[in-house]
Structure formats: C-alpha cells, structure tokens
C-alpha cells in the first residue's frame, strides 16, 4: 500500500508539473487544481451521496438502536448499555461469535490452501486455453448459492451420495451421521462455494509474477521448493491476502449454510442476528450483536492486513 501511495504522489507531482506548464503561473495552476478537485468531487457525488445515505444513515440508526431496549412491540428509547451488557453476560453471544470466526477461519484457510495449487497450475502449467480453464473453474458458481448449498445436503446426507457410495462399496454398514448437520458440513460447503473467490485473485497475482525472477532464482541455484518459497509464494501474497479477506469477511455473517446444513452445533452469529430480528423480536439486541460482529471483523481484518504488510516488507 505504501508503494501505491508513493506512486500516487509521483503521479500527482507529474500532473501538477504538467498543469504548471499549461497554466504558466502558479496561481493559475492552483485554480486549476482547485477546480480539478471540485470536478472530481462533482463526478463522484452521485455514488458518494448514495453511499453516504445508504450506508451512514442506516448504520447510524443501527448504532442508536443498539442503545435502546425492546419492550413488547415497542422500543424503549432511553439510552442504555443493557444490550452490550447482555452481550457479555449471556454466554451465547460470545460463543456464537467465536464459533463463527472459527468456522469462517477454517473455511478460509481450507479454501486458500486447496485453491492455491489449482491457481498455480493454471498460471504456470496451462499454456493453451487458459481462459477455458478459468471458465471451467467458475462455471459451477453460476447456479444459485442456495442451490449449491442444497446440493451439498444431497451429497452429505444420510442417504446421500457419499453414504450410498460407501455402503455400496461395503466399507460401512450404516450411514455416517457426522457428515451432515455438523461444523464440518458447513466448512466443506463454504470451501466449495467460495472457491472461485480464492482461485481468481491468486491466479491474477501469480500471472503478474515476472518469469525472469524465477529464472534468476534458478540460476542462483535454488531448487523448485526454494524457488517457490523465496519467489513465487511471497510475490503471490497479495492475491492470497485478497482471497482470504474476500472469503473470511462475508462468511462470518453467513446464515444460510449453517441453517441448512449445520445442525444444532454449528449455529453461527448470523443465525442469531436473523432470529433476533425475526422470532425473538428484539431488534435493539440484534443491532448490538451486528455492531459487535462488525467491530470484531474490522479488528481481525486490520491485524491481518498489517501482518501481511509487515511480512511482505520483511521478505522484500
């Protein structure tokens, strides 16, 4: 990111030099600069105003509501920390939050680890029809997410594909029960469902690697393993970072997968939020839980990003 800022600074210097030349005097260039800022903001304003209205306002209300309390059908609008107190006092909230982060974390690691070789294969070992491979990889992701989750239910189910196959092969006598309605079912499904989000960013960053660096490493006597560890892997880290965040963050709030496949032991925080806004009918508590989830994710993502920046610095 720092390189990026540096590049931006260079670019802006170049630009101001150019505007300086066209404007001949500093004052003119300043005016132009100012109008440029105005023009920029003007162009950005539709998107920005919409986003301000559609993000800040609801979030503001969500935050305000989290300090209210529910009373029957209505809200008691006196400010109170009761919801946050409840969040830390009742064990369910923290436990589900931790479980969500745990399940998403495992799913993210599994997805990235399993997809990395695939991206690597397409980037380095496929020479013709690369596009075809990319299309092949993304094709299953066209079907509705719901149906893909449902498909896993068919595969992992009691009379599902895996159990039927194992029984037909005589390997087991009774269907395996732990396949469905378990945390592993959720992890498997998430890993499958988000594979495209891992492969594509990693593939893009692998594609960007200058092949001459690999040659150089080889010339300096690195074997394939060392070459991978010292050149390929560090250079593909940006892709890995993007992939991880793109998968980890949305999955922590998922509630479809645990609802359909998770069973009692894999309920996640998203399920609870949905329940709080539905049958439990305690919107203020739901608001508080949502905000805690977001804070948690922001914290983890921040640490993760700083960590990768630090890592990359050390390597380079």
């Amino acid at each position, binding site marked *: *990111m720092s390189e*990026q800022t540096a590049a931006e600074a260079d670019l802006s210097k170049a630009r101001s030099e150019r505007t300086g030349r066209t404007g001949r005097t500093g004052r003119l260039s300043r005016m132009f600069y100012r109008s440029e800022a105005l023009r920029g903001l003007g162009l950005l304003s539709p998107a920005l105003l919409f986003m301000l209205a559609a993000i800040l306002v609801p979030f503001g209300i969500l935050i305000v509501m989290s300090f209210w309390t*529910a*009373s*029957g*059908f209505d809200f008691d609008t006196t400010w109170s920390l009761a919801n946050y107190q409840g969040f830390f006092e*009742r*064990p*369910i909230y923290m*436990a*589900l939050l931790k479980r969500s982060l745990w399940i998403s974390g495992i799913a993210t690691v599994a997805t990235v680890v399993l997809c990395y070789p695939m991206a690597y294969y397409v980037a380095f070992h496929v020479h013709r029809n690369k*596009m075809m491979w*990319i*299309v092949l990889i*993304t*094709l299953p*992701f*066209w079907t509705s997410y719901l149906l893909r989750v449902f498909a896993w239910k068919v595969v992992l*189910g*009691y*009379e599902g594909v895996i159990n039927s196959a194992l029984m037909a092969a005589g390997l087991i006598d009774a*269907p395996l*029960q732990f396949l469905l*309605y378990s945390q592993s079912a959720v992890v498997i499904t998430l890993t499958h469902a988000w594979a495209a989000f891992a492969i*594509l*960013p990693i*593939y*893009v*960053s692998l594609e960007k690697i200058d092949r001459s660096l690999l040659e150089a490493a080889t010339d300096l006597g690195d074997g394939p393993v060392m070459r991978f560890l010292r050149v390929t892997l560090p250079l593909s880290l*940006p*892709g890995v*970072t*993007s992939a991880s*965040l*793109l998968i980890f963050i949305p999955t922590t709030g998922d509630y479809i997968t645990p609802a359909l496949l998770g*069973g*009692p*032991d894999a*309920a996640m925080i998203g399920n*609870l939020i949905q*329940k709080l*806004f*539905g*049958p*439990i*009918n*305690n919107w203020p508590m739901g608001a508080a839980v949502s905000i805690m989830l977001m804070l948690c994710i922001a914290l983890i993502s921040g640490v993760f990003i700083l960590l990768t920046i630090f890592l990359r610095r050390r390597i380079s």
Partner: protein
Amino acid sequence: MDLLDHLGSLREGKLSRRAFSRSLLAAGVGVVSMPVARRRAFASSEDQATYFTWGGYDIPDLFVPYREKHGELPNFAVFGGSEEALTKMRGGFVVDVAHPCNQALPRWVATDLFQPIDTTRLSNWPDIMPELIDLPGNKGDGTDVWMAPFDWGQTSVTYRTDIVEVEGEESWDMLWDERYSGRLGSLAAGADAWWCGAIKAGVDFADIDTPEAFDRIAEVMRAQRPLIRTYTDDTTTLEQALASGEMVAAMTWNSSAVVLQSQDVPVKFAKPREGALTWVCGLMIHKEAPRIDAAYDVIDSLLSVDSGKFMISDYGYGHSNTKAFEAFDDATLEGLGLSTHPTEILEAGHFQVPQTQEWETRMNALFEEIKAGF
C-alpha cells in the same frame, strides 16, 4: 489497494464472460418465459389480493373459486413462522390477508394492524364451525370477527412404526428416548416446540408464563437437545429424514405424516397419552388492505368446501367448514386424527393459550440459547 486492484482486474478480465453469459442466459429465460409471464404476471400482480401465509398454502388447489372469479391466483407472500410475519408487517409490510394462529391472535390484534372481518360478505360463513370462531381474543360480537378460522390440527410426534418400539402407550417420551439419540427431530419454532416441552414437563398451559414454568420447560428442552439431530422449521427436512430412517421420530404437524404415508413410508402420527398440542389458524385482513374486495374473495375461497376437502385429504389438516367433512367417512377421518367434531380433538389435546409479546420474546430468546447448547 491490493484488494481493489485484484478485484478490478479479476472482475473485468476474467469474469466478464461468465457474467456476460449469465445475463444472456437470464435474458434468454426471460424471453422464453415472456409469453407465459406476460399473460399471467403482469395482470395479476396489480389487481389481485396478496395473501401472506405459511409455505404450502400458496397452491392453486385452495383457490379454485377465487380463480373462477378473478381468472388469476392471488399474490402470495410466504413466511416461515407467524412471528416473522408479524415482525415484517410491523415493519410496514402491507398485505391483504394474513394467516396467524390462535396463540398469536391477541397479539396480532393488539398491533392495530388489522380490521374486523365483515362475515356477511363471506358466502361460506354459515357453514363455519362455531367452536372455532369463539377463540380467546377473537371478536365475538355479531357479524364482526378479527380472525376467520380456516385450518386446525395438532403438533405431535410422527414416528417410524417399523423402527420405534413403543413401550405401552404412545407418548411424548418418544422424543426424549435416549435409545434413539441423534435420530430424533424437532420443529425449531418456539411456537410449537416450547409448548410441546410444556406438555412433556407437565406444565399446565395456564401457568406457562410463570418463572417456575420457564425453568421446568427449559430443563426438559435442555435434556432433549443432545438427542436431537436437527431443529428445523422446514417440514421437508423432517419428512425426508423420516423417510430415509435418518430420524425415527420427529415433532411434526398432521401433514407430514399424511404426506409420508402417501409415499408408503411406514409412519404414524402419534396420539400421545399426555395429549397433543392443538391449534387453530385463521385469516385476518390488514387494516390498510389495498384490495379489500379481493381479500374477501381470498378468504371465501379458502373457506370453501373444495378447499376444505383438499386440506383434509392431501394435508390431513382439519378445516373450518363443516360441509367439507361430509365427503369423508369416520374411519378415514379417524385415520387422519381428525373428527367432524373439532372440539373433541381440540379438547383432547392441549390448546395453546395466547401470551404477551414480552413472554414470546423471552421464550424465543431462551429457546434459541437452549438450541445453541447453553
């Protein structure tokens, strides 16, 4: 900016064709469906009443008279539980007709979101069983009621007759039987499960709002939780699991047993010795119902004899129209756990007692904690 950088290149370069084809596909399906959709969809969505109901009630079989009159089906909005439905309507969601059950009735009325039904506008009203109209919280004066009763039934245990060994009488104990640990299922909604828990715990429904009742019910629910394979509000899951033998017994409504029997799965809808949970559901008209005339037609259609016959034979639910029962002999009704005298059935079981919103919130929150293992 790594993330954006990647997204940008990834999205534009690599995904564009996928997206392109997807939209082509959608356009293609759209074009193909146009002749169908235009004829049906465009006329209907504007002029027809909206019926906000449980899934499974959004089928043409229940709207034969309505369709004859309007040429279309009503619009459907489907909910998974009546709490969810009420929450949505309190959030400004306006429908014409909604489908609550007796235990929610007073709370629904209290929201001031509904208008009384003028029963003189319903041609089938004279045939409606009076016992079902006279519910706690329903308006009893003259021709106005809040809720027109429509379907009634039980929440009980559906079990595999070929697998479960019943010791003595059928009982709720079947859902607490440790021999079948991991092979039992339950409805996820507190509106059913908590009340069944009360029956199991021996709590009188009149006392269900006492702290002691909360403790006792919570205790039996916690005891049951490790035995449960999954809690779900979707009957498909329970029925499939019962059909495959993944579950041997589950808490269900009448329809699951009927549907499974029609697929030749050896199941029975138990008559537990402690009594089943019984309920009546009905129809209410939204205060701001935009298509009030069509709303009355929806209700009249649902109360018709044809709809009643369908409900009884295909879903195994009771219906509020007495004439609907005339097509069935006593043995058939008996087999479905029904009777032409609904009070017999309703009184033989435990009839839900409406509770306050605070109670519902507290109960649901506690039940969620129990289901999550706390």
